[in-house]
């Protein structure tokens, strides 16, 4: 029952001023055990804010991040799952599943979290799961139209992960849920 928050591409303060208030009210400290962030925060204040939500914070560097010392990619193990984080602008074409799958195999992770497209996607393929939490602030993107604020909460429990997707559509928070199970030999 480990809760992992995945979000990114906030682009604060350049393209957005803050998280949507409804999201902020949901992100209460104490519930979430880990945060993985795809990058493009961009400033330290956002980093600090995320730290208050959960002290265990993993960030990969986005191209607009002002903190230069974030790593390009990061891997961590939570429960039975291996997670990988990368911003995604390094993987060309941006948002292409096969290329991302290549990265996933490279990192050897079960769950790959990337961003940059500001669009929520969650793919399951034979090697594992690729999740794009979208942009938590709904900031502008040159490659995506009509960006909605969104983020992802993963509930990792043993060999099973439940992915909750929180999207702010027309001012309302919509939640969706996806189940993934990991088989011991392969990820299906």
């Amino acid at each position, binding site marked *: *029952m480990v809760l992992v928050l995945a979000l990114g591409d906030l682009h604060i303060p350049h393209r957005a001023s803050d998280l949507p208030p409804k999201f902020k*009210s*949901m992100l209460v400290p104490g*519930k979430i055990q880990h945060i993985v962030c795809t990058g493009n925060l961009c400033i330290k204040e956002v980093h600090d804010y995320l730290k208050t939500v959960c002290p265990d914070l993993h960030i990969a560097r986005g191209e607009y991040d002002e903190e230069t010392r974030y790593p390009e990619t990061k891997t961590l193990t939570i429960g039975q799952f291996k997670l990988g984080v990368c911003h995604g602008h390094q993987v060309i074409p941006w948002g292409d599943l096969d290329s991302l799958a290549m990265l996933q195999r490279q990192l050897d992770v079960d769950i790959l979290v990337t961003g940059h497209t500001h669009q929520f996607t969650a793919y399951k393929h034979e090697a594992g799961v690729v999740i794009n939490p979208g942009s938590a602030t709904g900031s502008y993107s040159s490659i995506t139209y009509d960006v909605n604020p969104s983020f992802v909460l993963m509930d990792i*429990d043993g060999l099973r992960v439940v992915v909750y997707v929180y999207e702010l559509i027309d001012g309302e928070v919509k939640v969706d849920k996806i189940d993934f199970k990991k088989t011991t030999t392969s990820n299906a």
Partner: protein
Amino acid sequence: MNFCRYAALRRQLLIDPQVLKNGSCSPDVVMDNPLSQNPDSMWGRFFRNAELERMVDQDLTRLYPEHGSYFQTPGCQGMLRRILLLWCLRHPVYGYRQGMHELLAPLLYVLHIDLELLSEVRKVYEDHFTDIIDGFSFHENDWTHKFDFKKLPEYMEDCNGSESPVKINSLGELEPKIQTIVLLSDAYGTEGELGVVLSEKFLEHDAHCMFDALMNGTGGAVAMAEFFSPSPFGGSHTMFPPIIESSAALYHLLSIIDSSLHSHLVELGVEPQYFALRWLRVLFGREFALEDLLVIWDEIFAYENTKFNKPGTNDAESNVGVLNSSRGALIAAFAVSMILQLRSSLLATENATSCLQRLLNFPVDVDLLKLLAKAKSLQALAVEAINSTPLLILPRLHGRRNAGFTKAHIPSLDLTSPRTTLNMAHESYWEERWRVLHMEEERKQGSAASAEKQVPNRKKGWSERVRLRLSRTKCDPFRSKATFRKKNETDEGRKNIGGDVDFGHKIPAEVEEQDVKDTNFSTSETRCSSGCPGNEENSSNISDLSTPVRGTNDYVNMSGRSSVASNFSAEENDTDSVNFEPLQANPESSPLPVSELDPDDDTLNSTQNYHSVIKQAAGIKERKLLSDKFQLFWKFGRNINEGTSDRAAVSEDAIACDSGSDCNNVAGSSIVNGCNSTSGISKAEIIDQNLIFSLSDLGQSMLENIQVIESVFQQDPDQMGSLENCKNAIVGEGHITAMAALEELRKISNLLSEM
């Protein structure tokens, strides 16, 4: 049976939300997601449970470390945790409070020990087990079995003590207790018939049932859960949580049994809930070792838990809720016997913290059986106490709401006093002691006052206010007496004064009282003062007394202060009596029997004062009040001396008015206006300086007083010019008294100057 219920509950409440989701079609993800703010969501519940579990775990890790071999094992801890969580989830009102785990632990321990013993017995007497069979009807679902079961621990204790397995051949040689165990066992069934009652598989369920019963009280009065509840007990009148009520009941019982210890504790400000909270919430679990505790619990649980019903009263008036059964009475009695055990050390300490330390670190090497025997003997008394007047205790708790132990002290005094004659005597005694203790405070406060008119009424220290209250309670009874006496007076002036309304004082009754008292006092003073040339204080007092001054405000002030003065009188018993002795004034006969005063005079001892108070009642008290007033006035006079500047003008008049007059003046109540104006009661000053002053100083001060008074007279628009005129042209009745008082003052000053 309850096993099934428990199992179902366990499954239902402690299960992961995720697993549940598997079965059911999860309805609304918007509501049920982990971040949902919705309190009803499964995740919300999950987080709340997690919080609860965290608290429980915190306590469990610290449970009984000395018996860690059992309690710290993961199996036991897991069971404890589950039981506690389940109970708390079922009773969200109480939540989880520290202490619940300590109630549950011994129960689990007992069950565990029984199981162990049973298996041991089985091992030893295996061959016997197969022989015994039929003839025993076994009651299933029998609640009494559960309660009997609690008595088994007693047997088990003894068995634990004598652990050596005895090799015997036949059943008859077995100890009767083991015999019963053996007889109850059966070759059939999982663990035999006994298995229904005592079974390893259902250990947890049993423990849960027992715990539940303990907390709920099974319909009886003592429901342990109440001790954890923050809200007032259902049927009680008061707004206090049951634990506070029960603590109050404890103190109530203590006051009946040993009121000196009780008053000592109350005086120190040791409120019962400081230690009783821990004692009651864990049923003395923290005060005794586990083995001893089990013995105590045996006794407690042996008593019936049915609620008492006071005949003739409806529920609205009923009793201190939680302890309202014979079991509750035993609990209270046991607590009291524990306090009594520490009696000597508690009485020896003079501050609250060491008392509490003593109470909270109950000695380990205590004779438990003696304690229990004592508790049982007190139990009947406790029953009666709990049934009798618990509600009276509760108003006292209002006093507790505020700070300062003096405050707490007073209400408790109030309450104990009407209780019994024994308490009555004690109350007076303690009141005296307490007042004596606070005299110093008073003086210090008084000396700090400035020459303000209002200052006399000033920021009254709490002790003063209280004393005021106390004195008022004392004043009241003889207010009537005073008026009665007054009627006996033949002096016209006095009567006039009594009836006088010109002064505009709002408290005529008090005025009368003062009048009479002053009169009495003056006469007595005059008598007594004959012996002492040097007691300027008293003479000054008299002089002051004899100078009546008008002024409505001042009057009222003074009347208010008179009660304060009466306080002083009571306090100043010692000093007053001393002062009385050497008082020298005109040896005029007074209508009052002053001789009574003499026996009091040579007593500095408060107990003697106490006796005098009791013996002579109003008379003495009046005199004392008067004496205080005198001192009060004198202080004012002194302050006037320091503060005023009209002396010159007044002195002329003072001299002019010099004439002999009756010492018996009335106007006692007619208060020195000027005195009022100054303020500052500094009794300490007076008394201390008593011996220091010379006569001349005294005379001087008196003259100054007179001057001030007369200046005040002059200030008064209705006043006539000189005192002589006052004498002749009486505008108001008060003037007579004023005049008389002034004359007396002069006379006394003359006397003094002559000496």
